[in-house]
């Protein structure tokens, strides 16, 4: 309920302040199990991907995010869990006895849709960095679950890391074809990397210095 109300506001803000140019929205899965893999430039990434989903599907869409950031204080923890529906992942691997991806496995078993940002950090806006391999462990364990690459551009310009000032920009969301587990982790990561490459070349983006 709270989540729905929150995302109604987000949907309006995204529509009016940003404005999205979504290519192939029909390829975006709203029923699980499925894994959406996106590049990461801004806190808006999650908001926008969630805003593209139908309201009554939101409870089954689970963004995966860093426990050290989103679960750092009790307040943040409550918002992350109840409003954003985040699955926490330990980035530092503090508790070695537990698989940090356990939460992701559990969610996929319950037919949820995961939203993963394998860059691991928003980093420099509008620049992609090497992908973390966590996603390949998940795909290996669930070889039949479709992996959908999504490339976004502009959100890092609208709200980059280190700023709370939202500046309106039109943003591009390019959804790619789903693919499955490729047989081994190295080739899976290469395939994922290539999918992002292809999507990012669909348009000449304005430079951002």
């Amino acid at each position, binding site marked *: 309920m709270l989540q729905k109300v929150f995302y109604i506001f987000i949907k309006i803000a995204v529509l009016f302040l940003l*404005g999205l*140019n979504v290519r192939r929205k029909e390829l975006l899965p709203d029923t699980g199990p499925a894994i959406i893999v996106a590049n990461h430039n801004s806190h808006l990434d999650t908001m926008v991907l969630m805003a593209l989903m139908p309201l009554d599907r939101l409870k089954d869409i689970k963004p995966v995010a860093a426990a050290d950031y989103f679960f750092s204080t009790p307040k943040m923890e409550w918002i992350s869990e109840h409003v954003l529906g985040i699955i926490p992942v330990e980035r530092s691997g503090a508790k070695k006895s537990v698989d940090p991806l356990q939460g992701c496995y559990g969610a996929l078993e319950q037919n949820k849709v995961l939203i993963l940002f394998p860059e691991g950090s928003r980093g420099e806006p509008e620049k992609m960095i090497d992908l973390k391999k966590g996603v390949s462990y998940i795909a290996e364990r669930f070889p039949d679950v479709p992996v959908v690459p999504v490339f976004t551009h502009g959100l890092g*310009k609208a709200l*980059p890391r280190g700023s709370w*000032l939202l*500046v*309106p*920009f039109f943003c591009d969301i390019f959804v790619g074809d789903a693919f499955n587990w490729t047989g081994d982790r190295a080739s899976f990561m290469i395939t994922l990397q290539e999918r992002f490459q292809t999507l990012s070349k669909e*348009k000449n983006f*304005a430079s951002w210095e």
Partner: protein
Amino acid sequence: MTSFHWAIAGIWGLLIVASIIVFTISKRSAKDVSELVQRTQSWWVMIGIFTVAFLVNPVISIIVFGLISFLALKEYFSMIPTRRADRRVLLWAYLSIPIQYFWVYDSYYGMFAVFIPVYMFLFLPFASLISQQTDGFLKSVGTLNWGLMLCVFSISHAAFLITLPPVTDGGAGGPGLLLFLVFLTQFNDVAQYTWGKMFGRHKIIPGVSPNKTWEGFLGGVGTTFVLAVLTAPLVTPFSLAHAAAIGLIIPVAGFVGDVTVSALKRDLGVKDTGSLIPGHGGILDRIDSLTFTAAIFFHFTRFFFY
């Protein structure tokens, strides 16, 4: 019904006839005409929005033009190279939109005419230098100012028309002038496109816009001229001479606005300025001609009648 209402009814009549023609073509033609159909559907939406704005209240029209400026400026900022250091400056530029349209609402001509070209153009470079990043400063200032000029200052002239009182008793006044400007500008776009598609042979400015032809340009100018002379008595205080002059100025200025935005797009290597209006591209693709015709038409009218 006043003549103003008849004019709006006439536009709907044209739209319906055009839609029937497009529908017939789409049924008979073997070629893919989905873009043409999309374009026509978008015209229904756009003309619908304008009709409601015109008939309800001038304030609604002013707000609609303010929103058009916002969307156009957002499109412009999204497609040009920008600097991260200028994020705040872009926000200031956006903020000039409600202020500029407030002067319109207030009919405060003196401030309306200078706010952007004097105050904003002086303030934005200052706002930009505060970040102390001088790399790309000149380019940044130039591009931001031109964006405000095209998307906000020019377009706000169209909105200012609606605040003008009738020249004669019972005249259509501001709303009539605005309707005349927007209708002729947009009709001219369609006319130049259609003439060009049907008879276009000789390229007019191939380095900028390879699809534009002399046949399209001259056909459009001729059609718009005839239409201007025929419709001016309905909604404007123009005499035959005024109508004839503006019937030439609008199509020529519209063409220049169109190719100016084309040159910009070509420089940036993009086909459309956006994807907001299905079949047309972005909002700047739709109002490119208006960025030139609005200010010129406004001052033509002001010079002779206000």
